């Protein structure tokens, strides 16, 4: 694997029962690059991310993160790799029983040997990044959808990961919040020099974030390139997908 590669996937396949979700997918992400993965609902975008991080075991194929072959790792080795990866879930997946502060402290206390003063500083600094310092002592149930996403993002980046995985970061948000979250993701990526894989079907989000994009359809990579060539493609899949998105955007 080339030294510039953060992630490399070769011939990855995954099925559930008779349904093949990923059918021999190959892709790579370079260090510092933002890759956007497009696809219709149920096209296997989230499954791809979950295979990558080891939440779902792939049926076959190779996954490398920083040159490490993920499927062969023991649980402890996998956890060491995961310490350098952030994951923003579609639902943000904040821990309901903890306050925002405790949510952010959680990975720091469990995985690192920081003093309480250092932890406090990091928590406030990360909340400043997402412009939500005032929410520090709130419970997740007191936050709006957009705020939950921001706090979820803050929890993912507090450990300063090299690789960030975003699963539908703008789903369920209004267009303005979507743009704000997308801009924030880009800003943080530049500030913290992270590599990102963003799974989404939000074209606006992708246009803000993407250095490169791929389109998944029927379990295969149907297209790979920059956003301009993707949106101008003659491929029927893509034409259909983008025309619907443009109509939705105009309605919004």
């Amino acid at each position: 694997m080339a030294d510039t590669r953060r992630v490399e996937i070769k011939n990855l396949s995954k099925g559930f029962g008779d349904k093949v979700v990923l059918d021999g997918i190959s892709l790579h992400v370079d260090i510092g690059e933002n890759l956007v993965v497009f696809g219709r609902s149920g096209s296997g975008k989230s499954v791809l991310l979950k295979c990558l991080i080891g939440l779902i075991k792939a049926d076959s194929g190779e996954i490398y993160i920083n040159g490490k072959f993920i499927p062969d790792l023991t649980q402890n080795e996998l956890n060491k790799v995961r310490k350098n990866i952030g994951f923003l879930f579609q639902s943000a997946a904040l821990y309901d029983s903890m306050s925002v502060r405790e949510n952010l402290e959680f990975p720091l206390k469990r995985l690192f040997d920081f003093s309480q003063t250092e932890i406090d500083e990091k928590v406030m600094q990360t909340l400043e990044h997402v412009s939500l310092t005032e929410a520090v002592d709130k419970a997740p149930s007191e936050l709006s959808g957009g705020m939950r996403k921001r706090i979820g993002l803050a929890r993912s980046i507090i450990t300063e990961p090299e690789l960030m995985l975003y699963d539908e970061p703008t789903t369920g948000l209004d267009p303005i919040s979507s743009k704000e979250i997308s801009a924030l993701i880009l800003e943080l990526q530049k500030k913290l020099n992270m590599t990102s894989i963003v799974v989404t079907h939000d074209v606006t989000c992708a246009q803000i974030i993407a250095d490169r994009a791929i389109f998944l359809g029927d379990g295969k990579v149907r297209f790979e390139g920059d956003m301009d060539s993707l949106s101008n493609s003659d491929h029927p899949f893509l034409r259909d997908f983008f025309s619907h998105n443009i109509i939705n955007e105009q309605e919004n």
Partner: protein
Amino acid sequence: MKIPVVKYLRRPTIEQNIYNFFATITGLTIFSFEFFKNVFIPPYDVGEIKRHMDELGVKTFPIVSITGIVIGLVMAMQLQPVMERFGASDFLPATLSLSIVRELGPVITALIFAGRVSSGIGAELGSMRVTEQIDAMEVSAVHPFKYLVVTRIFATTMILPILTIYVIFLSLFGGYIAVIIVDNMSPAYYVNSILSSMKFGDFIPAIAKTFVFGYIVGLVGCYKGFTTDGGTEGVGRSATTAVVIASLLILLFDTVLVKITLILWPTLDA
């Protein structure tokens, strides 16, 4: 940790039910092994264990207090005329205390505890599972089994014996209230009768088995919650089935443990 999936169908076949039965037993066994594999490995999460002991144990005190007093009252009220019929009224405190200490106290406390705690754990971990909070823990390199399951099972195992001792004392107190309503028995006579009839061997196995019951309550609740699927419907199902399985296992293990106790210490049988 690979746990067999229990599939719930609206109209399950007999084969599916048999499969689910064995999948549940296998799942519980794997969970048990994982618990013992992880419980001695640091970090020990003492803060979490204390929080669960408070949340799952201390907050159960009100309901078990009422249960304890009622068991004592009702048992004494029921026994009083029966003992009188056989001319054995003097043995009422001894009979009452032996029944409560050896059987009723531990089992009823465990069943009440299972009703409140197994379902609570099943629902809490179940919602964490369906809202991807457990996945979030896993991807952040935290061992969710150790943090969520081990701490809860440890807490329930430790707190149930304490609750049981408390219930036994309250039941005996409740029994005394019932006795003085119909009989003019002095507190000293009541206490002396209990102490003279009770052996240390009556007390120890009874309390020892509550550690097992506490373990069952935590184990089943965590197993059902941790393996929840099927969205909010699945959460409700986990909470309900956790209570059912925990209660059945408590009764099953009670029978087995009583028999083992009587084999190991046959004098208790006398």
